[in-house]
């Protein structure tokens, strides 16, 4: 703010003038952010309020003739719905499978391509590629890759153990889904780690090296602690995204690819958002589905807050780069 004083008029303004300036500045601000504000009210706040109301009714997405207020019935139902419980457990399992492994992999990739190596741009591109491949294409990639007869995986397995015909999407659907998810997200996380690594001043590491630290020690005691904010960021976004995985398991259902109202992923991949989707768009239970989704939001919010709570202990905001 130091620079601003230079342009103030030489005569000290009276309080009224100051207030007028403040009002004008505020007006300018609100004018500038008005598109977002309007969009927020109309496309977020109003619909979300609608969703909240919807979750308290039996709304079927079709007809207002029969709409009735049902109180918290839909929420009570969610707690006694065995499918919802199964689905939530599967979603949490996917999160456990995907987030830690993914995080380690992203960091590893970033450390590897951060080294002064030849073709580093090529490597970066290869790792980043799956991240930009649209979900539909990614699902096809994995469907064909693990196809029982035309896939490479079975061909490779078959070279070791002859006469196998593993139907991956039937026998190990969650494994395929987890690998697909990790593969698809790795590039995005890697780039953010890379940005973090490049923000660490080279002198820190050089100084440690001069003091006789091994590369592993440098990573462990210098790089990692300085990266904790980035690790934290990737952890939070990883968890939020994984809890919302919806389209992938549906697209990975065995059989012809494509979503139709009858598409139910294998039970192992019957994730929580899938359950909500089916309740809403297949069974037309908009009210119940809305309740399910609010509960999902509660889980996301809860986990996020817990993470922020623990972050004090291990996230270091030491260096201002």
């Amino acid at each position, binding site marked *: 703010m130091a620079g601003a004083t230079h342009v103030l008029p030489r005569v000290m303004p009276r309080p009224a003038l100051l207030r007028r300036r403040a009002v004008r500045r505020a007006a300018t601000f609100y004018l500038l952010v008005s598109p977002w504000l309007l969009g927020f009210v109309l496309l977020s706040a109003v619909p979300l309020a609608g969703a909240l109301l919807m979750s308290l009714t039996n709304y079927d997405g079709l007809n207002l003739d029969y709409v009735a207020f049902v109180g918290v019935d839909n929420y009570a139902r969610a707690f006694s719905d065995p499918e919802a419980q199964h689905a939530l457990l599967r979603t949490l399992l996917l999160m456990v499978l995907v987030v830690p492994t993914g995080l380690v992999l992203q960091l590893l990739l970033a450390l590897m391509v951060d080294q002064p190596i030849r073709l580093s741009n090529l490597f*970066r591109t290869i790792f980043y590629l799956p991240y930009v491949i649209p979900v539909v294409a990614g699902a096809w990639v994995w469907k064909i890759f693990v196809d029982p007869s035309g896939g*490479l995986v079975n061909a490779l397995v078959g070279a070791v153990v002859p006469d196998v015909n593993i139907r991956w999407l039937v026998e190990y659907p969650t494994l395929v889904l987890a690998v697909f998810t990790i593969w698809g997200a790795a590039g995005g996380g890697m780039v953010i780690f890379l940005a973090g690594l490049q923000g660490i001043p080279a002198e820190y590491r050089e100084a440690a090296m001069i003091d006789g630290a091994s590369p592993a020690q440098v990573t462990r005691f210098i790089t990692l602690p300085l990266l904790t904010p980035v690790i934290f960021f990737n952890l939070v976004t990883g968890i939020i995204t994984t809890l919302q995985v919806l389209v992938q398991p549906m697209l990975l259902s065995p059989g012809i690819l494509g979503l139709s109202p009858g598409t139910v992923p294998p039970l192992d991949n019957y994730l929580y958002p899938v359950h909500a989707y089916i309740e809403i768009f297949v069974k037309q239970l908009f009210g119940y589905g809305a309740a399910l989704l609010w509960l999902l*939001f509660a889980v996301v919010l809860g986990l996020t807050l817990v993470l922020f709570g623990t972050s004090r202990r291990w996230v270091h905001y030491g260096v201002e780069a």
Partner: protein
Amino acid sequence: MTRAAVRYVPVSFFAVLFALPIFWVLVTSLKRQSEFGSSLFPTQLEWPNYQLAVVLADFMHFALNSLVLSGSYATIVVIVSALVGYGFARHRAPGRNQLFGLVLALLIVPTFVQFVPQFVLFARLGLTNSYWPWILWALGGSPFAIFLFRQFFATFPRELDDAAEVDGAGPLRIFLQIYLPNAGPAIAASAIFMFLWVWGDYLYPALLLHQDNTTLAVRMANAYVDPHGNPLQTVTMAGVVLYVMPLILFFAFAQRFIVRGIVTTGLKG
């Protein structure tokens, strides 16, 4: 020698692992359909698969739909988000920080939670089967892009504004003449992500658009079939390659700019 091995062996190993599934799509796309499942590699490259992929799916029609939708969404949302980001970065007002918190809070509301009521809203306004939902979303800006621009503009020296203000320029002119022209990396990064989001999104077009004006993503979700309804995996893979190829070429070219864009905009959090 061993140092080099430490540097190159793991990274190459992972690169092969990452590229193999994509490589397999390419291989499959060049097989004859009769070779699918019977022969590991094509005996000769079956280029006509690509021609079939274009003809059978009316590929160009859907590609144009995708291009129009992604392009117009990205253009509008970037301009709006830049303006809003500029507002957040440079203009003080009571409630500003709370509002910015709201922007960030929306990032953790699951998109599907927001979409279901939006779907009902669009349906009741008669906006389904049109591109209006995307235009409206774009006009409201994107929290992600707003955040990005706000971070980016916050690094600009304030003296720029002050000098311009002395010249009597209003905030809009300052934005258009000083901030926007210097926001290249942020514009590029956000435009790419926003374009990519629509180009790749499956759920919204599947639920909001009908057959004819839907996007390539939805069309590609269904396998190509022969007249008897038998799936043609090889042609489908050719279609997938055509769907993804523009993105790959673009990213191979733009990779270094993206990394730089993210570094300079402080996106890392």
